[in-house]
């Protein structure tokens, strides 16, 4: 009698921790060593355009984190069944769907901000960071890790976005979070501001810098950020 002598494979596979050092690296790497904006210089278009005010930048950052994380998750879940010939189109459809969901939600929740961000929410579809992560990571990795990678890259982008916006709004408009429930007026020529330049005599010279409102200012600021980042993080310096 032919017995089924198939050897059982050892069932105990070494379980990887849900949030081990590898996962942590996925999350923190894009914040510093592999930042999508200051190191890879991706996603610059929207970083220049939406950063005049902090509040819309904040919303934009959340939107990108959401889209980046969930498109990575879905792409990774489908990665074995997506036909290779049409994979780019499939990724694009996933991103576009999520972006449309974000846009519709935003219009229902905060209509004024959705008017301010106008076309730039839609342009997340073409944000190279999102598509880049899908091609480079999610197509070849498991869902959980891809999700973390998406969150990490979204945060890396959003962090720089917020930093640029703080500089631009503070020096360009004298306020922070204008247009939001926690609007914070800091310096300006009326009694609404914390530092009123009309009554505090030694601040009488202060003027808002209109250059900061123009998009070229964002380019200078991002340039300075890249400079600071490189001189502060020795790993990024070319050894050649």
């Amino acid at each position, binding site marked *: 009698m032919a017995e089924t002598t198939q050897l059982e494979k050892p069932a105990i596979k070494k379980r990887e921790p849900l949030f081990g050092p590898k996962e942590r690296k996925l999350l923190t790497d894009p914040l510093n060593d592999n930042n999508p904006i200051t190191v890879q210089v991706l996603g610059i278009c929207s970083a220049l355009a939406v950063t*005049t005010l902090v509040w819309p930048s904040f919303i934009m950052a959340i939107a990108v984190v959401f889209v980046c994380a969930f498109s990575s998750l879905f792409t990774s879940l489908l990665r074995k*069944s*997506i*036909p*290779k*010939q*049409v994979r780019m*189109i*499939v990724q694009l*459809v996933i991103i576009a*769907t999520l972006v*449309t*969901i974000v846009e*519709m*939600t935003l*219009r*229902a929740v905060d*209509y*004024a901000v959705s*008017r301010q961000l*106008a076309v730039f929410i839609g342009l997340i579809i073409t944000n190279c960071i999102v598509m880049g992560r899908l091609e480079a990571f999610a197509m070849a990795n498991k869902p959980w890790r891809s999700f973390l990678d998406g969150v990490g890259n979204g945060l890396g982008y959003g962090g720089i976005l917020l930093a640029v916006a703080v500089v631009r709004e503070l020096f*360009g408009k004298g306020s922070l979070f204008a247009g939001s429930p926690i609007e914070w007026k800091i310096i300006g020529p009326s009694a609404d501001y914390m530092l009123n330049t009309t009554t505090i005599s030694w601040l009488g010279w202060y003027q808002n810098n*209109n*250059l900061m*409102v*123009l*998009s070229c200012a964002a380019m200078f600021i991002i340039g300075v950020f890249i400079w600071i980042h490189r001189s502060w993080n020795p790993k990024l310096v070319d050894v050649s």
Partner: protein
Amino acid sequence: MHSKRYIYTFVLVMTAVVALVLALMATGLADIHERNAAIYNKKAILSAVDNYLEQPSSVLSDEQVMEIFDQQVEQVVVDAGGDPVEGRLAEDVDLAKEKDKPEAERHYPIYILNSPKGKVYIFSVRGNGLWDAIWGSIAIEDDFSTIAGVAFDHAGETPGLGAEIKDNPSFPAQFVGKEIYEGDGDYVSIKVRKGGAKDPVHEVDAISGATVTCDGVSEMMYRGLKNYEPYIDRVKK
């Protein structure tokens, strides 16, 4: 390699699922979107008459905006001859669409605010900036000449330059107190002058670096308010 049949099926199924999800969401949120858009527009109109409200329009809640519109605002629609059009609310008139009609068939919205601080007429105007459309609400006191307040908005002017017509409160503030009629009734409107206003009654300063947008505002003020002249003539009598 996947077969061709597999690829087609995959794409079809994916498209169907995505379409279903988005369609459900769009219909589900349509009411909220519509309400938000209506309140946003009403708030924009009220921002022209901040001086006549108890609180500035920027701090009004959605309910307060609706309440002011219900209790203090009378909505009138007039035709090109200045006669009132029955059965149409001002908020349903979209100037962008009226522009496509022949001039004689156009309708114009008027919002009359009866606030405790006085009666003002808010006229809607629309024109072109540098990149795209600009529009605004012009509030005029009941002498039909003195500007009580203005509010502008735009579709795509440059932030920091043309967009200042909306973002910089000192630009619309200049219009308050100017007059659109000269002496005994010659229509002159308000001009935005590059290099600084010369006529203290009919001109305001332009914004540096935004000449085309400011010329657009001048043009919009002149043409936009002229559309209301027949109405003004009729009511004045």
